[in-house]
């Protein structure tokens, strides 16, 4: 698969996790592609860190709601509020996050491990962009779903134990990649679905943590 195809494939699979009316926070990059693949009849309430519940489609220059100085997203791009949505302040907004009012957050990872620990905010000595709202989301969202390419330049990103400083511990419920779907259980990683382009051995070779294969392993394409 081409890089763009991989991202679309993962986003499409992530969309299947959602049901009508879910309150969802989407991290930057790949997660923002998820709404394009929602099944018919599924409408989301998109929660945005900057204080929009719910966020609407990205306006284009010339649109009536195009307002780059007053309505933006957490990446600095122009944003909008959906019909029926509203704006809130950061303290209230993060109260909603920590308080379990967000059904799911989808975000990328530098590393994720078999205990559901996630690292995605700092590479000591190299990059320290900061955690922004990621720590709050990982702890507070009811479901924390990591969506990412299975490896980085051929190297594993899924470990038995994260090596980088954590964003949050024991927070990840599910990992969705172009190779498979992994559920984080008390006994480690359980592979419930596989992309038929790959074998179980391919997945195991690309993962630096033990994987248990579910008895009724399904195809990601079903």
């Amino acid at each position: 698969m081409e890089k763009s195809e991989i991202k679309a494939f993962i986003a499409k699979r992530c969309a299947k996790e959602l049901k009508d009316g879910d309150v969802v926070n989407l991290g930057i990059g790949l997660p923002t592609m998820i709404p394009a693949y929602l099944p018919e009849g599924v409408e989301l309430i998109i929660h945005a860190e900057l204080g929009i519940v719910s966020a609407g489609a990205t306006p284009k220059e010339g649109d009536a709601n195009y307002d780059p100085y007053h309505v933006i997203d957490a990446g600095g791009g122009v944003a909008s509020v959906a019909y029926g949505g509203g704006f809130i302040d950061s303290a209230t907004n993060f109260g909603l996050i920590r308080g379990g009012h967000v059904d799911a957050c989808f975000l990328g990872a530098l590393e994720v491990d078999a205990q559901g620990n996630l690292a995605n905010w700092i590479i000591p000595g190299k990059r320290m962009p900061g955690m922004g709202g990621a720590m709050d989301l990982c702890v507070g969202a009811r479901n924390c779903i990591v969506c990412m390419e299975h490896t980085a330049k051929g190297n594993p990103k899924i470990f038995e134990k994260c090596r980088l400083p954590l964003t949050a511990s024991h927070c990840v419920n599910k990992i969705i990649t172009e190779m498979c779907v992994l559920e984080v259980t008390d006994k480690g990683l359980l592979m419930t679905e596989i992309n038929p382009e790959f074998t179980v051995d391919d997945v195991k070779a690309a993962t630096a943590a033990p994987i248990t294969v579910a008895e009724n392993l399904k195809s990601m394409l079903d």
Partner: protein
Amino acid sequence: MAKKPVLTAAEAAKMIPEGATILCGGFLACGQARAIVKELVKLGTKNLTLVANDMARQTGPMGEEYFGIAELIHNHQVKRIIATHVGMTPEVGQQNAEGTLEVNLIPQGSLAECVRAGGAGLGGVLTPVGVDTLIEQSPLCLGKQTIDGKEYLLMKPIRGDFALLGTYKCDEYGNCWYKGTMRNFNTVMATAADTVIAECEYIVPVGEIEPENIHTYGMCVDYIVEGERK
């Protein structure tokens, strides 16, 4: 209720001394007192501590160079920041590596709540966010507590000498209304500083903002500045 004094951005900036701690509302400079910040840059006031979600943007929405407090960083006027995300301002990382800028990163919800606590008379915040992470070693973290079997970090309240608010409409009593995503950290910051300056795009007569729609109450605001209209 007395009308609040209206200052120029330059007059407001002159009130802020070297070494001051400033709570800066705004998220990527949306909802930031950018006119006052521009004047602070002209004055060159040094050794500032900035508390803000981020250090704004090196490039603004329309290609503006140094948009918001990013220019204070660029101009080496800042000695310490408390923020959540500095990915859009690489100079923060550079100055930190050079040892000239202290950087304290804390989670976004913790920043909001620590400032809220600072303005609400609370002695701290207990949050599960940051447990098992580097936040446990932050100077803003006072330790861990277990309540009903769950671990929490005790985070210090945050207050400032000044708060600079970036509002849309401000009436003559200092009541503020924010447009779109401008509200962000402004409403909590308005409560947590000794001197609060509200920069707005429009000063409006009292009553224009409906009582139900006042986001920051005039009682919290000391001075009003009319900035640039966007």
